[in-house]
């Protein structure tokens, strides 16, 4: 009796100690979960809680499982006894892929679009925007919940994907690659949808926009399905992981993807930022980094391709397009810097001149675009000269390059840049005129460029077709204002056209002229000088600093100033 009670006592003591370790581990886990949970984005936490209770989510999830199940049965029935011998995994995979693509490419991005819109409709956005959450946190919270939904849908279909792998006919890297691109597409769609939802506050435009978004997403979904079906139909059931160019292509694609994603992300956050804050500098830094990365990739390809001249043309045309679009949008910024933005301007004149392109304002945006394109010309010419020198010393052979050909290509690129400088400059002038009546917006700037382009290309074309003498001529100098016709004509046969010298002179002069007209307004923006922080702000900053670093040493002052 006493013995048994003793053993029980020992047992309990033992289990108590194991309990303790378990408890301690459990407590630790709990504590780290709480710690992590505290640092999670509040919006992510709230939307996850909401999603778990929402009917829409349950229905989508249920439908996904149901479709996966139906397809499994249908597929197995269709394949029949072949399932034991043939490698039919790829066919099954395409089905599951399309089933998964619908929630990922339509439902999740549309949810991201609605995320902000519905907050505005329910008037919770006001409440949210006056909390301590920064706009970037709001965007990343919404994005995070999109990713979470993707993960849940993906995990729902993953047993099916495992099944396709076991059927053979599709290898593991291919499955991973397809899912990876699908997730990238889903994230990109979500991000773009979110940016679109910040563009307008009015209900009518939101409705119009949502129709476009749904249409776009459905097209995206359809395209994804077609691509999958096509690529498997051609028998390409495995991706070429041994191919060097596969990886290089992917690296280039990812560079572009990440940089554009950052750009759109920051643009969406900037849309949500209060008006007096500097909403531009961060975006412009990303643009510059993007430009540098693009230049780097192009240089690398040019080197590995032993100086293929066409690369210079591709480089300049893509850069010109990029700066045309970004520059067009930047010219829609408000010309007046808020006092808040002026607090962080560079203090020296030199700093102001060299960093001008980074600070908000239409003129500085124009400067940035022009500088970006000029740097392209410099890079291209420099590459050419370097190649000549290196070639002549026999260090590295740019076999494919001919100096004369390359110069022609650079000239075509240069003409493209002249057009961009002219059109952006005209847009800037127009918007300055518009400013007398109403406050220009980014959207307005975009529309101005579209209108200018339509006039520049359309009017000369109409004139040419209505003149009997010119109707049958292919290209005439009447088309100088039309960048599209001119550039297509020049690029078409890639050779030296007789109009080239004239085009170079006329367009250079025009670009210079338009640029010079804009210089005074740009200069006015560059002249904006730093203003001191208001006293109260400086006080609080000092207080916060003290809290962070302890009391500060009084700054040493020179004995001469008092």
């Amino acid at each position, binding site marked *: 009796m006493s013995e048994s009670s003793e053993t029980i006592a020992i047992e309990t003591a033992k289990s108590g100690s194991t309990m303790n370790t378990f408890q301690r581990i459990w407590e630790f886990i709990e504590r780290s979960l709480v710690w992590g949970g505290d640092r999670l984005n509040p919006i992510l936490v709230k939307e996850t809680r909401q999603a778990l209770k929402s009917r829409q989510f349950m229905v989508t999830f249920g439908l996904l499982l149901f479709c996966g199940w139906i397809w499994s049965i249908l597929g197995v029935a269709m394949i029949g006894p072949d399932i034991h011998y043939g490698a039919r995994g790829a066919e099954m995979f395409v089905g599951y892929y399309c089933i998964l693509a619908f929630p990922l490419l339509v439902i999740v991005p549309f949810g991201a679009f609605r995320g902000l819109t519905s907050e505005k409709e329910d008037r919770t956005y006001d409440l949210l925007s006056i909390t301590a959450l920064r706009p970037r946190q709001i965007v990343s919270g919404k994005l995070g919940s999109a990713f979470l939904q993707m993960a849940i849908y993906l995990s729902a279909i993953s047993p099916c994907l495992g099944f396709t792998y076991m059927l053979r006919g599709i290898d593991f890297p291919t499955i991973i690659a397809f899912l990876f691109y699908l997730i990238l597409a889903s994230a990109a769609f979500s991000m773009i949808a979110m940016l679109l939802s910040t563009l307008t506050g009015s209900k009518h435009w939101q409705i119009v926009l949502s129709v476009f978004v749904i249409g776009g997403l459905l097209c995206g979904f359809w395209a994804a399905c077609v691509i999958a079906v096509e690529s498997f139909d051609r028998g390409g059931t495995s991706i070429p992981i041994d191919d060097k160019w596969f990886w290089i292509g992917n690296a280039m694609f990812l560079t572009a993807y990440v940089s554009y994603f950052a750009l759109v992300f920051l643009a969406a956050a900037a849309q949500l930022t*209060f*008006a007096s804050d500097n909403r531009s500098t961060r975006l412009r830094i990303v643009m510059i980094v993007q430009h540098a990365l693009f230049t780097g990739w192009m240089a690398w390809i040019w080197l590995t391709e032993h100086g293929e001249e066409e690369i210079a043309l591709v480089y300049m045309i893509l850069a010109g397009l990029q700066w045309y679009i970004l520059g067009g949008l930047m010219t829609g910024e408000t010309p007046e810097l808020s006092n808040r933005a002026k607090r962080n301007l560079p203090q020296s004149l030199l700093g102001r001149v060299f960093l001008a392109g980074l600070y908000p304002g239409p003129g500085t945006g124009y400067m940035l675009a022009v500088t970006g394109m000029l740097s392209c010309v410099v890079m291209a010419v420099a590459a050419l000269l370097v190649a000549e020198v290196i070639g002549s010393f026999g260090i590295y052979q740019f076999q494919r390059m001919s100096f004369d050909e390359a110069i022609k290509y650079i000239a075509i690129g240069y003409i493209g840049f002249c057009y961009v400088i002219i059109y952006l400059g005209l847009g800037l002038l127009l918007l300055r005129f518009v400013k007398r009546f109403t406050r220009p917006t980014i959207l307005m700037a975009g529309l101005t460029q579209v209108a200018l382009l339509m006039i520049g290309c359309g009017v000369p074309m109409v004139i040419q077709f209505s003149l009997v003498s010119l109707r049958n001529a292919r290209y005439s100098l009447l088309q100088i204002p039309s960048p599209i016709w001119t550039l297509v004509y020049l690029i078409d046969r890639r050779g030296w056209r007789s109009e080239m010298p004239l085009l170079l002179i006329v367009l250079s002069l025009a670009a210079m002229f338009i640029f010079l007209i804009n210089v005074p307004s740009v200069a006015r923006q560059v002249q904006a000088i730093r203003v001191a922080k208001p006293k109260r702000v400086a006080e609080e900053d000092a207080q916060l600093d003290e809290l962070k670093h302890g009391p500060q040493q009084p700054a040493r002052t020179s004995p001469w100033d008092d």
Partner: protein
Amino acid sequence: MIDSNTMIEFRGLFRHFGQTKAVDGVSFGVERGTVFGFIGPNGAGKTTSMRILATLDQPTAGDAFVDGFSVVEDPDRVRHRLGFMPDYTGTYPNVNVREYLDFFARAYHLRGAKRERAVEEVMDFTGLDVLADKPTDGLSKGMRQRLCLGRALIHDPTVLVLDEPAAGLDPRARIELREMIRDLAAKGKTVLISSHILTELSEVCDTVGIIEQGRLLAVGAVDAIQHPRHKARQAKKVMEIRLIGDTQAAAEWLAANAQIEKPQTDGQKISFLFDGDRQQQADLLRAMIMADFQVESFGSRRQSLEDVFMQVTEGLVQ
């Protein structure tokens, strides 16, 4: 800044919507720890000025300051110290009361035990603790108001801006709200409150401002506004007379008197503004009795906020 104790300051604030001048040059300050009542007819510009103060709207010109920080230049700093209760409740579907408050506590960067304590305290203070697990979009109007107040309080702001907090509350809840506001002021919070129910404001506010068509018509301590001594125009008393018999004739007789303004008949009661001292009051009574009016009662009434409001505003709607 007027001085470092001014927690809220409007400085020449304008907000125009096209032709509508919703706020038209408003300037005033509110001291720390006091309650300022904002009164005005519909469309006077109360909500508009409060939204600007809460950094939700941009002024056309001028600026407003919270604890010395401009709402235009430093809205981020203003947001930390300001709690705003709008005249609507933004609720989320599928979120219960506790989750709702928890979300906003997180949004104000409250963490761990601090956040839990903030949520508990606010639910306790507003009496929402019994509803903690109810979905927010199924709450009654009064409960929503409480939720909204709770949300505004979650980060323990020093300045509170409440836009018609009493709308839709039952009488008991109104009294409770009044006590809550007094509590908050006693804790050193500065409160800006707008309302249509003037008796309520007069009991809870230290200072009131009357606004109409975007312009501030009168500002001052409640007592000073009710008993203006210095301003001749407002040194009038509200008199009330009850009569037996023909009130109409009496009203006409009164209207002929130069010292009397705005006589109003209400059944057997006539009320009017009287411009004179106590001796002249007695003279008036004697004159009425001499004129054979059967006066049942005769007296001056303490001028209520409503009277001031009716005097100062003209009922113009823009």
